[in-house]
């Protein structure tokens, strides 16, 4: 189940990273934003669970578009460090606005799934986790189709390969960037909205998620949707393995140890074109 969520987070980040050259530190905040929207719709406004999921994702897309329009548009052509600093500032501000509104106290969301797990040949799986997994797979497939088949997807791929040429060929860079950032943000918000009801929602929940997303992007290579998908599942698998055989405390360290290893052996990620500066 976690593999699907990791993949969603990774894909969103890898698109933004690969196409826009922006190290997006607000990614984790979009994730917790999705979870909080879910909390608001389900627990406070008592909307339908599935409708809430759609709304939370849509709001994530909208928020992503706003961030791109307000903060990033004027930084076109700035170096990677500058945009990174702006994103760090936005991250700090967003996380604390969240804390101000929702307080530091963890919130939990009730889900409509039966609390008895599904038992299949000795293995028990919670229905809610099964649902998360299915939706995550659906979203991954949808994103893949969007990038592969649609006009805007083609523009994204063109921009990724060579921004300047794409512009010369008549690709509207502003629209492409806006769509990319909104799509990536929407995926992060969807991941948060899916996972919020399974665990609890706290203002800091996005931090580790964002760091793991970075790990996945590195594993999969910049800008590769397939790579991020594989990276997400791989990370989840290795974490389980680490928790089982080493100590459960080191579970979260697995991904980062893996990044260091991968970069030592294969600095461009598992699946990627060569991308080294300098």
């Amino acid at each position, binding site marked *: 189940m976690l593999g699907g969520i990791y993949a969603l987070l990774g894909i969103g980040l890898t698109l933004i*990273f690969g196409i826009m*050259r922006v*190290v997006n530190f607000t990614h984790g905040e979009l994730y917790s934003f999705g979870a909080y929207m879910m909390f608001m719709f389900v627990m406070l406004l008592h909307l339908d669970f599935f409708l809430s999921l759609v709304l939370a994702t849509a709001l994530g897309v909208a928020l992503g578009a706003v961030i791109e329009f307000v*903060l990033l548009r*004027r930084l076109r052509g*700035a*170096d*990677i*460090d*500058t945009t*990174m*600093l*702006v994103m*760090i*500032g*936005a*991250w*700090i*501000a*967003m*996380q*604390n*606005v969240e*804390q*101000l509104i929702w307080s530091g106290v963890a919130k939990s969301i009730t889900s409509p799934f039966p609390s008895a797990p599904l038992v299949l040949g000795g293995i028990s799986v919670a229905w809610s986790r099964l649902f998360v997994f299915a939706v995550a797979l659906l979203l991954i497939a949808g994103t893949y189709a969007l990038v592969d088949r649609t006009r805007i997807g083609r523009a994204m791929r063109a921009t990724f390969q060579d921004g300047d040429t794409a512009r010369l060929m008549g690709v509207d860079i502003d629209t492409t960037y806006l769509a990319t950032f909104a799509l990536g943000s929407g995926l992060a918000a969807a991941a948060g909205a899916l996972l919020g009801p399974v665990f609890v929602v706290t203002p800091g929940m996005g*931090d580790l998620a964002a*760091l793991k997303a*970075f*790990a996945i*992007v*590195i594993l999969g290579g*910049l800008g590769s949707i397939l790579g991020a998908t594989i990276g997400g599942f791989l990370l989840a698998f290795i974490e389980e393995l680490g928790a089982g055989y080493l*100590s459960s*405390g*080191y579970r*979260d*360290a697995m991904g*980062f*140890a893996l*990044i*260091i290893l991968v*970069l*030592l052996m294969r*600095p461009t990620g598992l699946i990627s074109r060569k991308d*080294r*500066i*300098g």
Partner: protein
Amino acid sequence: MRRLAILALLALLLSVPLWVGNFYVLHVLIVTGIFTIAAMSLNLLLGYTGQLSLGHAVFFGIGAYVSALVSLGFAVHLAPDWLVTLDPQPVWLAMLCAVAIAGLCGWAIGRVSFKVRGAYFVIVTISFAEVARLVALNWDELTQGPMALNNIPPLAVSLPGLDEFDFIGKVPNYYLVLVAAILAYVVIARLVHSRAGRAMIALKENEPLASSVGIEVTRYLVLAAVVSAAIAGAAGALYAHYIQIVDPNVFMFLYTVTMVIMVVAGGKGTLAGPIVGGLIFGLLPEVLRSFAIRPEVQWVAYGVLMILIVYLLPNGIVPAVASLWNRAGRADAPAAPTTGSSPGRIVP
């Protein structure tokens, strides 16, 4: 003129405890000073070699933990029947160990990380910080995990002919940090103005060109990383013995971010930049707090301010003030007051 300004600044800093009676203000100044030292060390990497390390808290944290552990002593099983023990050592020795081991880690991490550049480098450094945090959290036989290392002794120095002197309380610690900061400044300034420093700056401006004229890229980068890590380790050691408690959160990303903000806001690649940035962003939270503003609002302001600085003063405060100074009818002055001699200013 410039020398006079520096002397005046030093006199001002030295006299602070004489006219600031509020111990809390001194406390804030001490902590600010420690983070300013860390920011200065980060500036060596970020400003002079152009490598954005987002794992700088690693060295700060390693310095803090090593110094705390050596001064407290420890007993740890490296294998089920291989027990390593260390009796408590004097604090000055512990601090030296901290500097040495932080420098060593700087060498090791530098060797590994400088294989990659750009975004990859950023993420690899974040990964090191996160691994360090999780090790500190989980290896509780050594680090006490989330229970934190507590009751860390303060620095005690015994000079021949004098009794032992403990750095307890605000005033002695203030001077200790001030002296350490000046020392760090001098080390960095000398390095930057040396041959090695010029090589680093050349690398930042144009790495392929620099390597084609025979500059050994990795060697200079690693040298910068070692010095930077050692100074950050010293800052961490000072921190541990001043606040007397260390927990795994010293490795948190937020600490690195604080250092990065200090450097960038002040002006990366300028010697005075991290000091100006350090003072502003070290004192700002306390200023906001004194207006009884809720901490969340403070941090929101912090984040927004950071964005504004990047938009309005992309090169940082020090270069901006310097150019303002020059424009204000002093175009004849050969150099800006504090930064003119620094060749590391970026012209994008």
